[in-house]
């Protein structure tokens, strides 16, 4: 069987998705046996010009991780779209915006002010900030333009498949590789390497019965029982509003789900779903009592939308 051509690229990302691919351990040799890796910046020395020289559709599958945050990310998204038969939004950032998407709660100016003026470790009396083009004695230097808004991959180019997770678990990555190698790809637009159920459907922590929350607790100031459903104990957990498939690794490690696998199948807005789920289990009749309980959730905006602000219906802070 001819080898298929595989690419892996990071845009606005941390590199954790690439490391998760390597975390398939010795199976990486099976991937190398089945695939010609034609572009993979973390591991192999191909340059952008090598990709530009490829004919369109040359790459069979590109695993694109990272959000689209600047003009270079956008250029590579278009370039790899053209060069790839199948483009996969791989990991939370490409899928739903990820942690970099939290920047959509601020403007580019607010971020620049904090990063280049206000941080305690910064000394910048001339207020120098990165410019897309700088002329030096030897010529022009260019860096990408940072955008005001972080985008998901499918807001910029056509995407064939989605692999959720921050990062996707190695077990699921191996499942995805097997699907690709088999050639039996699902319908375009499918989420692969995850399940159709919610985290709660798959979570093995003990559920005692009906959830009735009269007080929210924080793991910074209270100790949950690691064997019992976090929500039943009053600890905010994104399980009801998050797609399953990760083997509930956070919950089994003693911390509540924060939603990196994105909205469950059929749910448009993960944060809204979380809000709805939490609202339905607050045990109070009077409005003042509801308010008292809700006020115990610290930072509800970033807790309900930890990974998916760019993919939410509103996509960013607008006021």
């Amino acid at each position, binding site marked *: 069987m001819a080898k298929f051509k595989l690419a892996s690229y990071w845009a606005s990302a*941390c590199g954790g998705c690439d490391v998760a691919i390597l975390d398939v351990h010795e199976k990486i040799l099976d991937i190398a046996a089945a695939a010609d890796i034609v572009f993979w910046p973390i591991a192999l020395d191909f340059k952008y010009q090598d990709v530009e020289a490829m004919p369109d559709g040359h790459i069979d599958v590109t695993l694109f991780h990272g959000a689209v945050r600047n003009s270079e990310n956008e250029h590579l998204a278009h370039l790899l779209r053209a060069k790839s038969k199948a483009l996969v939004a791989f990991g939370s950032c490409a899928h739903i915006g990820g*942690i970099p998407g939290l920047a959509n709660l601020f403007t580019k100016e607010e971020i620049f002010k904090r990063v280049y003026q206000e941080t305690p470790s910064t000394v910048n009396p001339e207020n120098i900030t990165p410019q897309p083009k700088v002329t030096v004695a030897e010529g022009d230097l260019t860096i990408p333009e940072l955008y005001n808004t972080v985008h998901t991959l499918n807001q910029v180019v056509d995407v064939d498949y989605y692999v959720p997770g921050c990062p996707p678990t190695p077990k699921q990555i191996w499942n995805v590789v097997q699907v690709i190698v088999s050639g039996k790809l699902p319908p375009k637009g499918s989420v692969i390497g995850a399940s159709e159920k919610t985290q709660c459907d798959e979570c093995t922590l003990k559920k005692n019965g009906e959830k009735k929350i009269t007080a929210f607790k924080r793991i910074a100031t209270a100790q949950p029982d690691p064997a019992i459903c976090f929500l039943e104990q009053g600890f905010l957990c994104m399980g009801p509003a998050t797609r399953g498939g990760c083997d509930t690794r956070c919950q089994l490690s003693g911390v509540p789900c924060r939603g990196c696998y994105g909205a469950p199948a059929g749910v448009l807005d993960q944060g809204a779903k979380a809000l709805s789920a939490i609202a339905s289990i607050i045990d109070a009749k009077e409005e003042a009592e509801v308010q008292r309980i809700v006020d115990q959730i610290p930072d509800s905006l970033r807790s309900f939308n930890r990974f998916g602000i760019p993919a939410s219906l509103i996509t960013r802070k607008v006021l």
Partner: protein
Amino acid sequence: MKRISIDPITRLEGHGKIDIFLADDGSVANCYFQVPELRGFEKFIEGMPIEEVPRVVSRICGV
């Protein structure tokens, strides 16, 4: 002046770019290392509950 651009720098975590300028005799006249990315953790982490911070800042670098 001849320019050699290394873009991207590979086999490291993150994004980097190097422009090397060569003089007429082939020696290096100047060299610029450029970081073409910013995400803004310094800003969007502000005000976050302390117990949430470890699982966010671990995404600065996943390598």
